[in-house]
């Protein structure tokens, strides 16, 4: 007697199974992967439409769109993984424009042979991050490439958000006299990745700061303060972000080294590996340029938010035809904080 149930499909083997070429073929195996993994994890009304694209409701205001590819190695690191990172990274790119992030599209490049169990961990982590942020993944795509042509998983996410009337944030709006603030300690993400890569262990483990910043940013916008520029200092760290703003705005900057918050364990790890925390990536920090008169108000608002507890004012914008970012060193001298040269840490996000 045939004991098989009618229409039975053997479920994906998340324990021992691996990605194979058929998972990207467009055929039944792919449909199963989408259904049992992606659609289940991300479940929302737009994804449930089941079409090639998501049909979204109209939104009031100017739209912001940002995209971010994620190739971090290792895929799992202290404090996060490529999954939640890919959600946070794109939400932050949308949010620093002053927008409320609304929707995310995600596209996956999978390497043949990648364990399905690890893929599930990553997708679940993405889904959790999206849920927590209240920003659904509404559409996606999956491709599989032969072994050796990728490194496990690459994830590209694209976000769309909407900006309220009257909000205008842009990298070219910094003016001499403005204050420069950061929302917390620098270099945590990059050094968490490095400590995992180099197998370094410290008494206090270094944990990535990966986080979605739209809540913190909403709190800053709510103060009604004179915000000029918001940026999340990811690759290339604070130094690179400030140089970008200085060039875009045609100004210089003067930082106070002793005011820049860095965790002692991160400073120690940087010292050990010959890195400068000002150039190390962050994934949950905010750089704020604001009118000088509003710095205290914004600092207070940041410090009230869990992601801004260690917020600090680190310098001021000044006139400089050469657009140099300079720093008064704790030692008593002065130096340039230059653009990053070459690649300090490859595949950090």
């Amino acid at each position: 007697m045939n004991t098989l149930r009618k229409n039975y499909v053997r479920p994906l083997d998340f324990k021992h199974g691996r990605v194979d070429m058929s998972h990207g073929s467009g055929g039944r195996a792919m449909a199963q992967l989408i259904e049992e993994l992606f659609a289940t994890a991300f479940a929302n009304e737009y994804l449930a439409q089941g079409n090639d694209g998501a049909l979204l409701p109209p939104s009031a205001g100017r739209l912001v769109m940002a995209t971010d590819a994620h190739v971090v190695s290792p895929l799992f690191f202290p404090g996060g993984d490529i999954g939640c990172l890919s959600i946070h990274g794109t939400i932050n790119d949308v949010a620093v424009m002053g927008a409320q992030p609304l929707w995310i599209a995600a596209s996956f490049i999978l390497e043949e042979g990648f364990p399905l169990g690890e893929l599930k961990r990553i997708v679940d982590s993405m889904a959790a991050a999206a849920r927590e942020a209240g920003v659904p993944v509404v559409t996606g795509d999956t491709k599989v490439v032969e072994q050796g042509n990728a490194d496990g998983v690459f994830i590209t996410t694209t976000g769309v958000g909407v900006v309220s009337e009257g909000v205008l944030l842009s990298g070219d709006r910094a003016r001499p006299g403005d204050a420069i603030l950061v929302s917390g300690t620098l270099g945590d993400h990059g050094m968490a990745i490095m400590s995992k890569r180099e197998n370094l262990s410290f008494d206090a483990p270094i944990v990535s700061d990966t986080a979605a910043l739209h809540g913190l940013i909403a709190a800053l916008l709510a103060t009604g303060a004179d915000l000029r520029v918001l940026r999340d200092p990811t690759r290339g760290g604070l130094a690179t972000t400030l140089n970008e703003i200085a060039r875009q705005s045609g100004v210089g900057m003067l930082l106070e080294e002793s005011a820049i918050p860095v965790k002692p364990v991160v400073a120690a790890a940087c010292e050990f590996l010959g890195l400068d925390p000002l150039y190390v990536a962050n994934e949950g920090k905010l750089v704020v340029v604001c009118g000088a008169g509003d710095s205290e108000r914004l600092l207070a608002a940041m410090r009230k938010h869990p992601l801004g507890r260690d917020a600090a004012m680190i310098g001021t914008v000044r006139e400089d035809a050469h657009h140099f970012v300079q720093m008064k060193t704790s030692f008593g001298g002065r130096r340039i904080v230059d653009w990053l040269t070459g690649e300090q840490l490859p595949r950090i996000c």
Partner: protein
Amino acid sequence: MKYVDEFRDGDVAKGLAAAIAVEAKRARNYSFMEFCGGHTHAISRYGVSDLLPVNVRMIHGPGCPVCVLPIGRIDLAIRLALDHGVILTTYGDTLRVPASGGLSLLKAKARGGDIRMVYSTADALKIAREHPQREVVFLAIGFETTTPPTALAILQARQEGLKNFSVLCNHVLTPSAITHILESPEVRQYGTVPLDGFIGPAHVSTVIGSRPYEHFAEEYRKPVVIAGFEPLDVMQAIRMLVRQVNEGRAEVENEFSRAVTRDGNLKAQRLVSEVFELRRSFEWRGLGEVPYSALQIRPRFAEFDAERRYTLTYLPVPDNRACECGAILRGVKKPQDCKIFGTVCTPENPMGSCMVSSEGACAAHYTYGRYKDFVVKMPARREAAA
């Protein structure tokens, strides 16, 4: 950060700066060469020269291993990677050094060369163990600090019977370079490089000790103060040099006594002499051929010597004509005296080797100090006081 912040304390620095200003005689100038790139980097990064009186000038020396590596040696490594198909391993800074034909190791990597950055010789050995079917070459560069780890790797490879590992040796010697500078016509005859003393190397001296410098103090009447790489070490060493000059002394003094002894690390020295012997002559970028200034692998370790294993022949290649690295490495010119500094030659596209490593004089000045080359419109003095 404990054991680090103490050596970067701004208040102590102010005190030392004031002491130097009092002790340095107004009537004369003081020119000291910091031999090491590590000191050059510290001076630029912490703004040490901002704290010195105008009549105390620091001259950057040639002690940057990447900077003194001539084009022809990098060419050899590129040939190994591209023509011989080896896995070429080396320290990070070396990857960007410009070589012939617009290449560098980084560009050779983009052309398909299997070139990998390692943090230590142990990583290179690991790669050799993991790829027994491939040939793995470690491109060894550096002064006496990086030589013992290379010696250890060769000894370990022999002990393990690793058949696919070899070393392209470019290790050079600090004392020979100092002698070369002291013998140069700019110092001896023309006086274009006024040299009142040296800040001696930190890490190199932990290995070779302070004894090798005694010769310079005696023979050439130049004071040497061995100093650590922290900015306060440098300031203290400058104060000690000023004192020696004022008192007419020329001695070897050790500011870095927390790590350097007179004899150095005897075990490391033994390892090095077991594996290496003196090279009759070696080309340095900027200094040219310097006799007995480098090491080569002893014949009994020939199988680990990439030069013998692949019968490589060295071809000298002249530097770019506009590049002043040579003069800068000898202390004759400053980075900003070079026509292509900051224009054609930048850290992104280095023409000369001094622009490559963060320890190079040009890269240090470009990265940390080039704002000083422009007339600042702001009321700079008032701001400095604030």
